[in-house]
């Protein structure tokens, strides 16, 4: 299935989707990274904007300053999510984030939170920053500029994707499924390699 979504979305919208589905986003998308989430969760600073019903992407964009609190895009890509896994359950439970976008996936705690509260993980094609940059229409707002480039970014996107539902709100995790299958394949591969 293919879904076109525009935030804010509800847990019900997310529960319709299953791993392997394709998603295209329009409208608002928030950019976060390690430092942004350290401020929210380790330093206990409330985000200056309502994230409820929204999607967050793991990024530290390359930007050019064009005015007071105003930036234009240079190159915006996506980073590995796994190292920010510990923040995902909080984003979902406390702030109502409905989708996290990144590469390489999240772990069991995040999968459980997504199931419980109706959220998902959307895999983007890592390394495809040129395409991603062209799909971001504008950097609408930037909060916490002192964390540059790991600020809290508000982007406006058009036809953003393709994104693949890699963790759905039903407890399915495509990365874990693939890992399981790989493990099943290994004995035969070892045998053929003679190891």
């Amino acid at each position: 299935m293919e879904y076109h979504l525009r935030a804010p979305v509800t847990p019900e919208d997310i529960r319709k989707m299953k791993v392997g589905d394709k998603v295209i986003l329009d409208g608002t998308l928030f950019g976060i990274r390690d430092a942004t989430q350290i401020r929210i969760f380790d330093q206990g600073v409330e985000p200056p904007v309502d994230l409820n019903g929204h999607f967050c992407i793991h990024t530290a964009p390359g930007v050019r300053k064009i005015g007071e609190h105003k930036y234009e895009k240079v190159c915006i890509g996506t980073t590995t999510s796994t190292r920010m896994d510990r923040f995902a359950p909080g984003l979902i439970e406390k702030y109502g984030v409905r989708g996290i976008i990144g590469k390489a996936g999240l772990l069991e705690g995040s999968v459980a939170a997504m199931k419980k509260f109706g959220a998902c993980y959307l895999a983007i094609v890592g390394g495809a920053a040129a395409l991603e940059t062209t799909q971001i229409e504008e950097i609408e707002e930037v909060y916490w500029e002192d964390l540059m480039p790991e600020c809290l970014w508000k982007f406006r996107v058009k036809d953003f994707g393709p994104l693949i539902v890699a963790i759905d709100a039903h407890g399915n995790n495509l990365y874990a499924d693939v890992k399981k299958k790989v493990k099943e394949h290994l004995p035969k591969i070892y045998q053929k390699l003679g190891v």
Partner: protein
Amino acid sequence: MSEFPYKVIEDTAKELYIRALKKLPPDVKAALEKAAQKETSPTGKEVLKTVLQNVEVAEKNDMLICQDTGLAIYMVKIGSKLRLDGSKITEALREGCKRATLEHPLRSSVMHTITRKPAPTGTGDGVPIIYYDFLPGADYVDILAVPKGSGSENMSALKMFIPAAGVKAVKKFILDTVVEAGANPCPPTVVGVGLGGTADLCVKLAKEAIARPIGSHNPDPMVAQLEDELLEAINATGIGPMGLGGIISCLAVQIEIAHTHITLNPVAINTQCWPARRARAKVYSDGKVEMGF
């Protein structure tokens, strides 16, 4: 005899870094196109279609393929017919790397290893990484720029096996390392392998292996066969494009080998992500520059 044109080396070092980040070599594009045709999983197909679209968008609009500008590596080969001051070559390469970062501008990914303080110039202690070698009979300097992103570099590994473990242990280690890396290095990857030497040479060989054109086999038929065997094994795992499942996990396994000690059996792995970026130039003493890959 007039002085070697060091300034041309500097300009070329700048241009190579930027060009490598924007335009993939024809062999990499061909390998990705072939992968997109061969892949059978719908998700894998979608990923590879997007990868190819991204490469086209970057080239057409003069944009960076990936936001991770990496650490700059220059592999330099100096023609034996040239007379030049090597330290000035190093200085020119460093300056070129710095100018690419500041003048383009590029996001500098360089920082101090302990304090984690950013180095905004894209240069620092030991960065860019520069390797020198020599080309008998040549009258030019050959510079290969390989910007290396962290997603794939973080998946590097070195293992010092005992000789009795043989090639068997080496093969298993390579496969297990790729499986462990999973989605992290942005597959389909190029898996570079170093065999033999000392620990440091082994790791360097693995890096040289990922910098080879995709599909170029090791000239030793025995090693080339090992490359093919391992590629087949890795693609049988089912990791797939971006680790989301599929039959294309790896574009090529490329091995470089050296002799080793009677009691050593080292293997090193260096992984390159699907944007296997590299750019090459030959700089002649009259200032002429030939660009390539």
